[in-house]
């Protein structure tokens, strides 16, 4: 029994040391995918058909195929392309962490863009018209009227997608990255204590996800104007003159 506990302890310590790798992949691809998704969303409402076509193709391609296949394509496929193999980019493409991040950025940006697109369509037309009616246009309208609503609407699905991404980071282990799953597999190969190792790994993932979803739910609460307790601020006795 005591020996068993020691084993679990040492396994957990080994796994915890792999947590930064998992978090690094998650953070890099999460940020990049969100930025890319914003661009894709903008393309999806563009006037000319070409950007719209690109966005549609991107979504079709990356949502319709397994992420693991995309990772393999990038990691094994690009290694066979001569100008990459012998070019400057090789330093990046030989690195499995980079390849995972690249694949996840492409794949998840497609999902996130769809979330943003849905939220954009759900922003009440009246709000936008009210903005237009008082003379707002372009970026101002986007920043002050559309974006706040859009973010509020998109946040629950976005949180979901982030959780999905956390889980997807485990695919890095299939191309030799020693993230949580990778280390777990390594330990198992040496010890055969399958269940203990996997339970410890599962617990770590659950912990990461619980933390993330708590943070995102808190953010959701902050932004929820319907529920937020609005203090009845007294109207200042003198209003600043409109300039």
């Amino acid at each position, binding site marked *: 029994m005591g020996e068993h506990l020691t084993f679990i302890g040492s396994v957990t310590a080994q796994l915890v040391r792999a947590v930064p790798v998992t978090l690094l992949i998650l953070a890099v691809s999460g940020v990049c995918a969100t930025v890319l998704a914003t661009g894709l969303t903008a393309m999806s409402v563009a006037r000319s058909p070409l950007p719209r076509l690109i966005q549609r193709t991107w979504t*079709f*391609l990356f*949502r*319709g*195929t*397994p*992420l*693991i*296949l*995309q990772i*393999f*394509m990038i990691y*094994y*496929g690009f*290694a*066979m*392309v001569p100008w990459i193999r012998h070019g400057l980019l090789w330093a990046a493409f030989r690195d499995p962490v980079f390849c995972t991040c690249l694949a996840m950025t492409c794949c998840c940006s497609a999902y996130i863009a769809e979330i943003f697109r849905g939220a954009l369509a759900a922003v009440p037309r009246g709000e936008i018209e009210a903005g237009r009616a008082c003379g707002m246009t372009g970026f101002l309208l986007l920043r002050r009227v559309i974006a706040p609503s859009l973010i509020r609407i998109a946040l629950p699905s976005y949180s979901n997608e982030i*959780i999905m991404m*956390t*889980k*997807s*980071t*485990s*695919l890095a*282990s*299939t191309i030799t990255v020693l993230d949580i*799953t990778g280390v*777990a*597999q390594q330990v*198992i190969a040496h010890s*055969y204590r*399958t*269940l203990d190792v*996997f339970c410890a*790994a*599962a617990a770590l*993932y*659950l912990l990461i*996800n*619980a933390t993330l979803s708590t943070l995102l739910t808190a953010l959701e609460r902050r932004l929820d104007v319907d529920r937020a307790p609005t203090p009845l601020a007294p109207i200042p006795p003198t209003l600043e003159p409109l300039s």
Partner: protein
Amino acid sequence: MMDDLTLLGFGPDGWAPLLLKGCLLTLAVSATSMAIGTVLGVLLAWARLKGPGWLRRTALVYGVVLRGVPELLVILLLYFGLPSLILSLSETFGWEAPGLPPPFLVGSLSVGLVSAAYQAEIFRGGVGAIPRGQFEAARAMGFSDLLCFHRIVLPQVARVVLPALGNVWQFNLKDSALIAVTGLSELMRTSLVAAGSTRHPFLFFGVAMALYLVLTTLSSTAFHYGGRYSNRWDRG
């Protein structure tokens, strides 16, 4: 170019037969795991909605864990864990060791277990979306629970649930690629082997992507029409 066509053809050096077989196996694994997921998902949803306290909590924990842990980890756990479990069981009971569980079964089971967690949420939400008055109107007319389920719940749940189930199916289809790690030669594994032995990864992964796209597009079209049919009464 000629080279590529030979590799993808049906000739002695061609991979077409194996790739097509891989496609079928992918479909079979996905369908099996979907079925496992639906059966278990309905049970879990029932447990969450109407089960006694301990069962409700168990179902809740099941959902949280299976939706929060990477699918790959679940597959690996079953693939590595089941044999040792079976081995220790057969030792305790003095059975003859039955050997390794077939990868097909392990694969479908692990994807199915995850699928069940998602499907349970969908079914629960679907039943929750039906206004209470619908049940009351039925009960007030003497419907039994079973009849109420069959005539009132099922048709309406089908409408809410079909698009979401379509999503789960897409995820099943893509998750089935992870089963490649168990050595089952479904589409992903076949393309991996082909890529490795011919040293044409771009070609074979590209073909595999195209085949996955065909599978996902066809099935999403099917779900779209299924959804429209089950939804015919909702178009004002």
